[in-house]
């Protein structure tokens, strides 16, 4: 049985369309100066944004691979 529509298709949609919202948000708060990268703790927050995005991508990716392979 083909599980693409139950595994990688929603995954691509989630991090593709969700990513558009996420990266627009990062760009907007940077462009407007709401996040000021000259301040050390704001730089930390910027890193946290990307780590958080990667964290959820990895969690969903690993579970999808485990379900399909094991």
């Amino acid at each position, binding site marked *: 049985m083909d599980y693409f529509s139950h595994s990688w298709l929603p995954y691509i949609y989630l991090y593709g369309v969700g990513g558009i919202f*996420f990266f627009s948000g*990062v760009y907007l*708060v940077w462009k*407007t100066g709401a996040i000021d990268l000259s301040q050390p703790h704001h730089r930390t927050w910027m890193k946290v944004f990307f780590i958080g995005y990667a964290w959820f991508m990895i969690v969903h990716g690993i579970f*999808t691979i485990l379900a399909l392979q094991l």
Partner: protein
Amino acid sequence: METFHNIGTSTDWVVMVMYFLAIMLFGTYFGRYTKNTSDFFFGGRRFSWWLITMSIVATGVGSHSFVKYSAKGFEHGFSSSMTYLNDWFFIPFFMFGWLPIIVYSKVRSIPEYFEKRFNPSARFLATILLLFYMIGYIGIGFLTLGKAVIPLLPESFYIFGSLIEITLMRAIVVIAIITGAYITFGGQTAVIFTDLLQGFILLFAGFLLFVLGISYIGGGQEFWDLLPLSWKLPLADFNKPSSFNFVGIFWQDAVAGSIGFLFMNQGLLMRFMACKSVNEGRKAATINILFVLPLSAIVVGNAGWLGKAMSVMDPTIVSPNTSPDEIFVVVASIVTSPGIFGFIMAALTAALMSTVDTLINATAAIFVNDVYRPIMKYLKKVYANDKQKDKEELFAARISSMAITVAGVLSVLAFIQFPTVYEAHGYFHSTLTPPLVVAIFMGVFWKRFTPAGVITTFLGGVVLMILGARFPEVFISPFDHGIEMNPNRPYSYIRALYNLIACVGVGVFVTMTTSFQNSIVSIIKKNKNSNTIMMVLSIITSVIFLLVIIGSSPFQFIFPIFIIVLIPIIITYYGNYDEELSTKGLTVYSINEAKQAFKGSELNEKYGEKVEVKLEVSNHNEDEIMFSKNDLLLLGAEVGDLVYLSDKRKWLGGLKSIHSRFGKSHNKDGIVYLNKDQIENGLFENDKILIAEKEM
């Protein structure tokens, strides 16, 4: 579908009653820290991130409930966790946009933001929509509580010789009375501390159930092997079935729900506003979304996953036909022993009560701030002093908490027709959040967004949403991503996409055509009968709006055009909007101005360190506290900067603390001078060491 009654033993009931009494005593104890409306609603803006993070667990887990995620876990597997793992996309908008704006602009409710950013009419409409949303949310909470408790109760019982049947609504009424008790007399501090305790208990109870269940099945490998492949996948099928599909839930939950959760949930916002600073609020949000929500996904869904594995292992233990909303109770009763089952059920129901309590408290805050105060202002009510004003507002808050509880119970009637709580909640979110979510979002992130734009987004958006609900095959199907339409409950989730597009479309169209509206208004103003013309246009628009709501006119398809064209003209004619003034400190483009306005003077961004001090009593009257010159240098502070002073004991989480300003310096290092009011408000003890830090 198989339903259950009388699950559990008398030992379980004893444990449950004891648990509830303990929680209520705990809440009542912290209720004594409520001295004014600021404490009642916001807990005095004093708490540490970890305390708020844990107190959010009970709210988040409660609202997203064991009942509904266990149901979806049973029906569809690990994809029940989707909702808990999709809140990160809007976090940059929240942490560096909305959160600093609501804290620094000192708004006490979301509608108040609309008045500051737009005008009083926008506030009025936002209040109505938000009250609907919050009361509906309370109704969902009560429905879930009722469904959790019914399997434990008998079908009927005798009292004074009469047979009383236990129905879902009757159970909900009794629950509502118990739930309303401590919120009415406790306030936000009581809720935060009760939720803190329950957050820990809830995570423990959820994992305990998971471990016992895995052991009952025979181990982790057996559990994994018993689940069909599609139950193991973390995301649902893209577009089927109509009752649970990925793309619908993405738009309903990851987009509308996440923005609603972060931007519109007054209960949650009040938790973040109870943090001692904006940065502390950011930490609470981050830890909650990155770590606590994924753990919560396991806590709330595992009973459903275990139930599925058991039903595959032996259908006589758990029937595949078990009512999904009852699977949590059924699995918990199978894998636990008497007493433990009572403890788990108590933890579940108490968590749900926490959610409802938070929502009732938040809705009361909206009522006092956006209904009571404006009415008192209109009636020109005069108070003898601030204390009397605060006392009367606190009384209004407590009475409104009770009225809101009753309204929440009544709203259950709107959701009772859905087969599962999950669908009811999904439908509710898809329908009620889009206009407010779009209005807040565009107000914060689009400086050009006008009052005409926001009011037309509310009214025009609602009109288009009503038409969408009435004719889903015409309006919603172009966005359905291939989801089959269920005629009984058409497009429960994907309707969120249509509703969002409708509201965004209206807002953008109206704002982009501002110059056109200005030209029309200037032409009308030149006419000597301009007031009469506008009066007639207003009446026509109101009639059209009513006709769409009633739905009796054959022309209802073209009515939205009139509304979207006429409302902006009416708002522009009667309104007086200065973009520069109205957006100052209220959009993402002017956070620093908001910060300055909050402080009341130039910002001092110099870095300093925390300083340990001992308090001494002074008899000054100003709201400022005095440090030595050397301590000010260490703190990186100047006279007039904002300071946060708290008890050194970190485990108190900021319960004993105050915010103030640095006053003029003295020469006694390690000593801070406070007056009696400050010591009382900060709940400080004379012999304890305090920690001072510059807020900004």
